[in-house]
C-alpha cells in the first residue's frame, strides 16, 4: 500500500491534498474612526436604486444549485 513515504526524505503529503488551516484568530479591532471629525453624515452618501425584479428567484436558485454543486 502506498502511504506516501518518499525514500530518504521522509513523509510527503499525497499529491492534491492541501493543508487546511482550521484554527481561527479573532482580530481585536477597535473603531478608530470614532476620533475622526467628518461632514460625511451631514452631506450624505451617493445612493442608487434598482428594481430587485427576480432577485428572490436568484437567491432560491442559488441555494438549490449550490447544494447540488457541493454534493456533485
Amino acid at each position, binding site marked *: 500500500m502506498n502511504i506516501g513515504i518518499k525514500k530518504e526524505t521522509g513523509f510527503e503529503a499525497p499529491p492534491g491534498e492541501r493543508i487546511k488551516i482550521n484554527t481561527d484568530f479573532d482580530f481585536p479591532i477597535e*473603531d478608530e474612526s470614532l476620533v475622526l471629525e467628518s461632514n460625511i453624515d451631514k452631506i450624505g452618501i451617493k445612493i442608487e436604486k434598482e428594481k430587485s425584479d427576480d432577485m428572490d428567484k436568484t437567491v432560491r436558485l442559488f441555494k438549490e444549485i449550490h447544494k447540488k454543486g457541493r454534493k456533485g
Partner: protein
Amino acid sequence: MIKTKDDKPEGNGLPSDRQSHKREIEGLKGQIQKGKGVDIGTMFVKCAYKEGDEIVFKSQRNAFFEVEHTDFTKKILDNSKVKYIIKEDNLYVVGDEALQFANMFNKDTRRLLSKGVISPTEKEALPIIELLIKSVVGEPAHKPAGNGWPSDRPSHKGEIVYFSVPGEPLDAEFNVLYHIKIVEGFLKTLGYTPKPINEGHAIILSELAEEDFTGIGLSFGGGMVNVCLSFMSVPIFKFSVAKSGDWIDQQVAMAVDETASRVSAIKESSLDLSKEGDLSEIESALSIYYNHLIEYVIENIKQEFAKARRLPRIANPISIILSGGTSLPKGFSGRFKQILDRLKLPIPVALVRMASQPLRSVAKGALIAASADESKK
C-alpha cells in the same frame, strides 16, 4: 402559445392565492430585508441591501487628498458640500471630490486600498477606511434591543454581511488574509456577522443565474483583476493579478509624462476602445496598455486551466462576464473578444458580455449570498 415554466404563477394560481401574494409584497414594500453585500474595492466601497422591491446601493470613492487645514478651508468645504475627514491636525478631502482636487493641484490622490487590500504605506488609512465603510454599510437594520450591543452580547449572531475579497494574487508577494481579518473585525464591531466572498464569485452569483451559476466572472477593478471559474455555483479556481486600472494609469502617465490622476480622468470620461484612428497621445497609450492587460489576464486564465487537476466536465459552452470600473470604457468587451478569439481558452466560450451593471455586480452578488444565508437562519 407554448408556456414555459417561468409563466406559471406561484402557488396554485387561483385569484385568492395571487391576492395573498400581492398583499405579502405590499407588506414588504419599504421594509429593509436582512442581509447586506459589500464591495470593498480599490476605487470604491459599495453596499447593497434590499428594501421592499428595490435594491439600494450606497457608495463612496476610496480616495483622499490632503489640503491645508484652516477654519476657512473647512468652512468653504462645508458650504460647497465637499466631504472631508479631519484626523488630528490634517484635513483630507474624500470621495469623488478628492480626484477633482488632485487634478486641480496637478497631483495624485492618495488611496486607502492598494492592489485590492488595505494600503500598507498609508498610515492614516485604517481609521479613514473604517469611517468610509461605516458610512456606506451603516449599522445593522436588524439588531437586538439594548444600548451596549454588540459588545454586551457578543454571542448574538448579527445580521449577515458578505464582503468582497480579492483572490490570492498570482504575480505579487502578498497575502490577503490580514486584509480579510481587519475588515471582518471591523464589521463585527458594528454588530454584523461578516463573511468573505471572492470578488469574481460574487459576479457569477449576480449575473449567471440562468446558466446555473456556471461560467467565468472577471472583475477589472482599480488595483487588481479578479477571476473566478465557477461550476454550479462552486468556485473551481479563483485568483487575482495585481495589474489593472491603476497599473494602466501609471504606465500611461510615465509614457506620456502626465499625472496618473489626469490619465485616470480621461480614461473614465472619454476613452473609446473601439475607435481606431484619430487618437490623442494619451488615448493611444491607454489603448496599448489595455491590450496588454487583457492579454495578460487571458494568458493567466489559460495557465490556471492547465494547472487545475480536477476540472468538472462542463457540457455547454460557458459565458464570460466582464465587470468593474476598468471595464467601463466603450468598446472594452469588443476588444476583449478580439483578443480571446486570438488566444483561445481550452473550453468553448458561448458569450462574452458586460455585467448588466458593471459597478454594482460585486455588491449585488454579495447581497445574494447574504440573503441566501439569512433565509437559512
